[in-house]
Structure formats: structure tokens, C-alpha cells
């Protein structure tokens, strides 16, 4: 059963041409996608926040801030919303740039509705995966924060591959104490194995 409207992913549409914008909104409604439209890149930036699930359908050529410039801004802000670019004829160089900057795909006008909807589905799947990954990272960080300073010290040395005896010597603790701390670390970090612990620490970039 689908969750409430608020948690369904939204298709965000940015296009300066009101007819194209409206037609896309019409199409989204015909397949039941929640949709929001914006007449300019700036309008989108003002109205969007990164915690909203969905994807962005973006016209590559717009007056003022262009589609590529908006993409750049979003990259700078580390926004993860997946982008599908709408291009016209002769926009191939721009499309290439867009792809290199991380767009999910691009589609030329006029397009077949199914082609666009396929790409949107692709983008929504990517969004789900992105958010899951982001969620994972945040969970790891929270777990790290929950470690006591001493536990943290022990963990840093454990992931370097040092034996408990060596760690005890480095930190001037008894080996027994180190073993206890180590056990707490594994539990708090939810690590299934040393390898798992190392992977998590690597992922959040905390490997020293």
C-alpha cells in the first residue's frame, strides 16, 4: 500500500515555456505522479529542499540561469536529486556536458511519452537508492558519535589491524580492558565482523 501523498516521490518540472510545462504536468497527472512545476531555475531553487524525494525534469535551454547552470548549482549544494534533461535539436554538446556532470539521462523534444516516463522511473529508482545510501551513511555517523572517547580511540586502532595486545600497550590499558572496549565498539557500530567495521569507517571517511 502506498504511503500518504506527502511521502510519494514528486516529479519536479522546470521549463520556461508555459505550454511545455503545462503539457508535462498534464502528462504526469494522467499517470498519477505527484508533480510540481517551475518557470525558471531560480524559482526551483527557491521552492525546493533536498529532503524531498523525487526527480527533476529540466529544460536545458532557458533564459537567465540555464539548465546546465542549475545542475552546477545543485552539485555545489551537494543535492542528490536525479536530473533528466529535455533538449532540443542541436543541443548535443550541451547534453554531453550534462551527462558528464552526472545527469541520469536526456531526451529530445518532441518525445514519446513512454520514453520520458521510462526515464522518470529510472530516475526515481536512482533516487530511492541514493536516499537509502545517504540514510546508511547518516546511521553510521550517528553510531560513531555514540562511541565514548575511549571506545573511539580503541576503534581507530582496531581498524588499523592492530592486535589487542598492541593496542593495550599503545593506550596504556590492560588487554582485558581493550577487549571490553572492542566488544562495545562492535555492538554499538552494529558491525558483523572486523571487515564490516572497516568498510563502514571507510565509507564515512573516518579511516585515519
Amino acid at each position, binding site marked *: 500500500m502506498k504511503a500518504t501523498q506527502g511521502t510519494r516521490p514528486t516529479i519536479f518540472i522546470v521549463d520556461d515555456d508555459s*505550454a511545455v510545462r503545462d503539457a508535462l504536468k498534464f502528462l504526469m497527472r494522467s499517470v498519477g505522479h505527484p508533480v510540481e512545476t517551475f518557470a525558471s531555475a531560480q524559482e526551483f531553487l527557491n521552492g525546493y529542499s533536498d529532503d524531498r524525494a523525487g526527480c527533476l525534469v529540466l529544460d536545458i535551454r532557458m533564459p537567465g*540561469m540555464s539548465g546546465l547552470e542549475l545542475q552546477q548549482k545543485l552539485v555545489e549544494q551537494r543535492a542528490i536529486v536525479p536530473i533528466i534533461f529535455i533538449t532540443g535539436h542541436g543541443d548535443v554538446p550541451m547534453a554531453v556536458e550534462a551527462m558528464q556532470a552526472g545527469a541520469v539521462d536526456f531526451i529530445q523534444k518532441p518525445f514519446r511519452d513512454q520514453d520520458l516516463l521510462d526515464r522518470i522511473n529510472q530516475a526515481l529508482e536512482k533516487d530511492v537508492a541514493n536516499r537509502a545510501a545517504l540514510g546508511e551513511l547518516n546511521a553510521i555517523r550517528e553510531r560513531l558519535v555514540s562511541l565514548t572517547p575511549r571506545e573511539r580511540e580503541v576503534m581507530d586502532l582496531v581498524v588499523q589491524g592492530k592486535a589487542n595486545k598492541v593496542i593495550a600497550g599503545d593506550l596504556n590499558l590492560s588487554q582485558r580492558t581493550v577487549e571490553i572496549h572492542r566488544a562495545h565498539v562492535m555492538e554499538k557500530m552494529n558491525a558483523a565482523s572486523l571487515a564490516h567495521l572497516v568498510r563502514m569507517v571507510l565509507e564515512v571517511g573516518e579511516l585515519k
Partner: protein
Amino acid sequence: METVGTETPAQRATRLEYEYQGVLDAMVDALFIIDARGTIELVNQAGERLFDYREEELIDKNFSMLVSEPYSVGQDTLEQSLQSGEPHIIGAGREVRARRRDGSNFAVDLSIGLIRGSDPQRFVGFMRDITDRQNAEDKVRQLQDRLTHFGRISTMGEMAAGIAHEINQPLTAIATYAQACQRMLADPSAALTPDLLQGLERIESQALRAGEVIRRLRSFVRNREVRREPIDPNRLLDDLLMLAQTDTRHHSIRIRLEQGAGLPLVQADAVQIQQVILNLVRNGIDAMSELPHDRRELHLRTRLDEHGDVEFMVSDLGPGLSEAAQQELFNPFFTTKPAGTGLGLAISLSIVRAHGGKVWYRPGDKGGACFLFSLPPVTA
């Protein structure tokens, strides 16, 4: 003949008469001597040939039989001018339709002057057949019109990408609406009639939008007669905006429109003036092609200048023109564009000049190039 020293007055008179006749007969132009009422007293050989009469047939006839339309100087007929005896009014060459013996008419250049010291007053008239000259002038005008027409086609070619984009937008909307409507129809149970109607309405209006773009393009580019009418300069700019935006939108350029209030009408061919403005817009777009998208602005302005003329301005924020380029700006075939014809400004210049206006360049206030042209107001 004996030498001058031994000439008697009678011999001198005879010699001069022969020489005088010789001059008359050698002349290429037709010469008439007429009295104050236009009665012909003398015709030279060129006149006989031009009109296909012998001199005897013209003597004592009225000069007006040789002229096809009532010849007038200002409000006066020939007779009245001659009677007023003001040679300076009738002295300058005028184009007149003349009539030959067989009734055919042709164009001549006519000049009439008072024979000073003649009493009673007599006048000399010179006529030159200018058919060839007129044909040459017509030919030049035709070529000029053709070139101007070519200029519009060329501009349209440069705008091709923008035009394609402008038509593609409504097509995209139409395709999208149509496909969405088909999806809606796929579910017979859903009560979607209002939505479907809306989709169809939107399809219709987008099709008309595309049609309008095409109509304006065709109207602009077709070969047509020059037609000068009293025109509101701001209306002219408004009409042009759609075409101009076809070009500017595609290049992400903002148009700043500043239209002066209370401008007088100008006597102009709307399409030609729009052609000039569009050419300047085109140049402005090219000038700003290297600028970041959000800094591209074209300033279009109309205002009344100090002389009471209507001044049009197109200025951009591009790099402006070098001193060297400014010198050569309006020369035909001068261009700073790799694929340019170099004719746009030359054609624009000739159009504005033909309208009695001026074109000039100055550097913009914020760098960039500023092109201006003025048109005189319609005289009451």
C-alpha cells in the same frame, strides 16, 4: 571667307547666322524658342527628330501639344508660368511626359529659360529624352529591392535555429497533450471528460501558436512591394517582438524594452524597418555569444530626439567594436563573423537612408555596442 579684319557688318551678320544655325543643328538635345503664350517660333533638328515633325509643322503651334500631361510648376500651368515671366521657377530640369507625332509618349528632361533682353519676352526650352536613364534607374531600384529582400532571407537563415526551437515548443506540447489524452482514454471507467477537453483545447491553441509563428515568418520574408505608410514606431516594435524573441529566447537573451511616450508617426515601410531592427538584434545576439547566460541583455529603445525625429536604439553587452571596425562598419562585405555576408548593415543603411533617416554607431555605456537610427516624423 575672308579674314575678320575685312568683314563688313552684313557679312558678319550672315556668318553669325550660319554659325548659329550650325550650333542649333549640331545639338543633341531638342531646342525650342517660344513666346510668352507658349507659341513655338523655332525648333532645331534634334527637336524635329525627337517629335517626328518638321519645323514648319510646329511653328505657330502651342508648345503644350508636345507635352502629354498638363505641365505645371507648382500650382501654375506652363502658360501661367510663362506669363508671370519668372524664369528661375521654370529653369530647372523637370521630368515631363512628352508626346510624339504618333501620339506615343515618353519621358523627357525639360528646362525652360528666359532669353534675356528679348522684347517681347521669349523663352528657350531644352528637352532631352531620358527613357534610357529612367530604365537604368528602374533597374537599379529593382536590384536594390531584390537585395533588400535577400537581406531578409539571409537574416531568416541566421535565425534558423531559433525558429526551429520556437516551432518545436508548441509541437512538443501538442505531442505530450495528445499522448496524455490517449492514456486517459485507456481507462474507460474514469470520468475524465473535463481533463480530456482541456487537453484538446490546449492542443488547439498550441497548433495556432505554431501557425502564428509561421505566419509572421512568411510575412516577413516574402518578396513584396515597398509600401510606405504612416506608422506608430512603438507599434512597429511590438509587432517585431515575436520574431525578435524567436532569436533571443533561443540564445537565452533578455530583452529590455524602453518605448518612448508620445512619439510621432513615421512614414515608413514597416517590414523594411523591422528588417533593420532585426538585423541589429541579430548582431547583438552574436556579439554576446561568449557571455554567461544570465548576463545577456539587449536594450531596445525608442525616443524622440532633439531634432524631433524618432530615434531607435539597439545596444548589447558584448565586447563592442574596435576603432578599426568602427571605420569600416557600414561598408558592404565587411564582417566580423566567420560566416557573415557583411551585407546586413549595408542594407540597413540603405533602407534607413531611403526613408530619409540616419544610422550611426557609438560605444555602449557599459561596454558593448550601441547602434542607432533615426526616422523623420510624418510631415502634416
